């Protein structure tokens, strides 16, 4: 089956305010979200991710550009005519209704017959494992349960797309972990396209089929969690997701997605680069801390430096190394049970790279 696009965002801009106070919450954004996909908008607060979600829901209207739902422009539709439902960050459960009435609300508004509503509410309660709490007031259930009700309420009308606005941010760590898995299960079972907004990179990597990283009203990179983590295109993406080392290098040669770069140590290593770019001259390299090792300096060392700090973390040890060219470099090494990795503060070490660990950034 060919991939169908559930949502297509075309050149959308959203300006807020007027005159000097005007700013672009979204700046000419385009992205396609496939049917049945768990798609995440990831970025720091103020990057425009929630604004994009609100434009799709219909709470705000774009200043410029188009949003298509299965090929149809939804601009003229008010939110109550869009087959799209939202799970709000605050849940926004109706406090004057019971759990069951909350879940039934959307179906009632769609004018479904009573019997169908009841069956569907029961089904939803079962899906989110809340059967016992149907007649409770929403103020009488816990935060995690409210979260489930909000999900059930939004899923009950079987929307074409489900929008989730940082729904897990109010939950404590353990519950959040549970709900991440739960959400993934619900998405799988219902087959509904999920668009999930979060500022938590770990959450995004855990759950998403694809991630769009946003900053300052722009989408910087779209790709699978693996793409985003291991093949960051720009500095912001590399920096925002996980820990990263940035290295200076000169391009020796580049073609077909493979390049050879010369490090400041004089050593030449292979590197990948984002498609559509043609790296040359001075570039910035990204190497993840777990893709390097410390060893006694020798001919195969990519870099040489001295250890400034050793941080023991149980599963790993972090070596904070100052390279001879002055750049800081962190190596994360997994610990074995028998003693530690054998290097101490102030010791001179060589940095060894595994194969194919370096990515050249666009900027």
């Amino acid at each position: 089956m060919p991939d169908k696009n559930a949502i297509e965002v075309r050149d959308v801009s959203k300006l807020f305010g007027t005159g000097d106070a005007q700013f672009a919450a979204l700046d000419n954004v385009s992205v396609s979200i496939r049917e049945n996909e768990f798609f995440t908008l990831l970025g720091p607060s103020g990057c425009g991710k929630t604004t994009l979600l609100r434009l799709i829901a219909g709470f705000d209207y774009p200043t410029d550009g188009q949003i298509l739902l299965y090929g149809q422009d939804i601009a003229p539709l008010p939110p109550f005519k869009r087959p799209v439902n939202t799970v709000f960050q605050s849940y926004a459960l109706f406090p004057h209704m019971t759990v069951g009435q909350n879940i039934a609300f959307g179906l009632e508004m769609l004018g479904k017959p009573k019997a169908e509503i009841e069956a569907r509410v029961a089904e939803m309660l079962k899906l989110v494992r809340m059967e016992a709490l149907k007649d409770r007031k929403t103020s009488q259930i816990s935060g995690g349960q409210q979260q489930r009700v909000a999900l059930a309420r939004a899923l009950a009308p079987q929307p074409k797309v489900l929008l989730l606005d940082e729904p897990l941010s109010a939950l404590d760590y353990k519950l959040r972990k549970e709900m991440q898995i739960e959400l993934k299960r619900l998405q799988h079972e219902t087959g509904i396209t999920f668009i999930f907004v979060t500022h938590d990179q770990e959450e995004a990597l855990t759950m998403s089929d694809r991630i769009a990283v946003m900053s300052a009203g722009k989408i910087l990179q779209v790709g699978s969690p693996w793409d985003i983590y291991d093949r960051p295109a720009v500095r912001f993406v590399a920096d925002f997701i996980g820990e990263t080392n940035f290295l200076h290098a000169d391009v020796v040669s580049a073609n077909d997605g493979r390049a050879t770069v010369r490090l400041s140590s004089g050593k030449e290593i292979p590197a990948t680069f984002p498609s559509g770019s043609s790296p040359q001259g001075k570039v910035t390299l990204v190497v993840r801390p777990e893709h390097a090792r410390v060893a006694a300096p020798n001919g195969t060392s990519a870099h040489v430096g001295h250890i400034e700090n050793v941080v023991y973390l149980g599963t790993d040890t972090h070596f904070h190394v100052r390279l001879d060219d002055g750049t800081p470099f962190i190596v994360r090494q997994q610990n074995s049970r028998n003693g530690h990795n054998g290097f101490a503060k102030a010791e001179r070490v060589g940095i060894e790279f595994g194969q194919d660990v370096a990515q050249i950034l666009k900027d």
Partner: protein
Amino acid sequence: MASAQETALSAERQDIRNRWLLSAPALIIILLAAIGPLFIVLIYSFLAAGPYGDVEWKFSTDGWISVFLQRDIFDDTLSFADAHLAIFWRSVKLSIGTTLLTIVFGFPTAYFIATRPERTREMWLFLITIPFWTNLLIRTFAILQIIRNEGIINTLLIKAGFINQPIQILFTDTAIMIGMVYVYLPLMVLPLYASMEKLDFRLVEAGYDLYASRFAVLRRIIFPLVKPGVIAGSILVFIPSLGAYVTPSLLGGGKNMMLGNLIELQFGQGRNWPLGSAISITLMAIVMIALLAYVRNAGSSEVRHG
């Protein structure tokens, strides 16, 4: 151990005594200014009328009888006091109408203010209270200027050619209602605003998101949540409407009386203080019954909604 407990207890007793002392001025005022006079009115209603007003100190139920019944001048037979009953009915009808109209006009006003940016809300509330600055009598005269036959409305309509003859608004029930809605509207807007201000407008968005039209959001989400404000506002408007005096006497003319005017009449020209007292007590009873019925009804429907 026991003595420590005793000390704590006596400290608590002392505390309660202090609180009573602090509330004493308020209690004295309530006793002297509200309950005392009410008691006098109740006693007066069971006394006989003096020939030039005042009361004669002998027990009589004539006052109470003539609230509802009237004695025939010739043969002393009793029949229903149609005039009184008509006034009761008009008062209740106009007060309910006024309450409903203030909800209709007050709801959008309060919604408008509650959805303004926070720093401009105070300005709007301030504007709402401006009418309170001027005497009620003056404001009622001003309304009279607008609705009388030679007033602004009729003059404009005639000039514009919509009508040839002025519409008679003044000295009708409509005039009384216009006046009362105008006077009591702020009393509806303020409590409505107070409960709308607390409304979480994200719930409104959630409603839209779940396929509720604007009207459905209003009926199913906003209205149930601001109901306490509607109830408070209705009580604040209904009670003074029922006892209104200035507005019906100026805008209703002599013949469209309400209870307030009827009571005034008994203490003035009518020289029948016991009857006036009995009507006053009846008015109070109507208010209490209406309130009980209203609050019970509103309360139970709240339970039904969840």
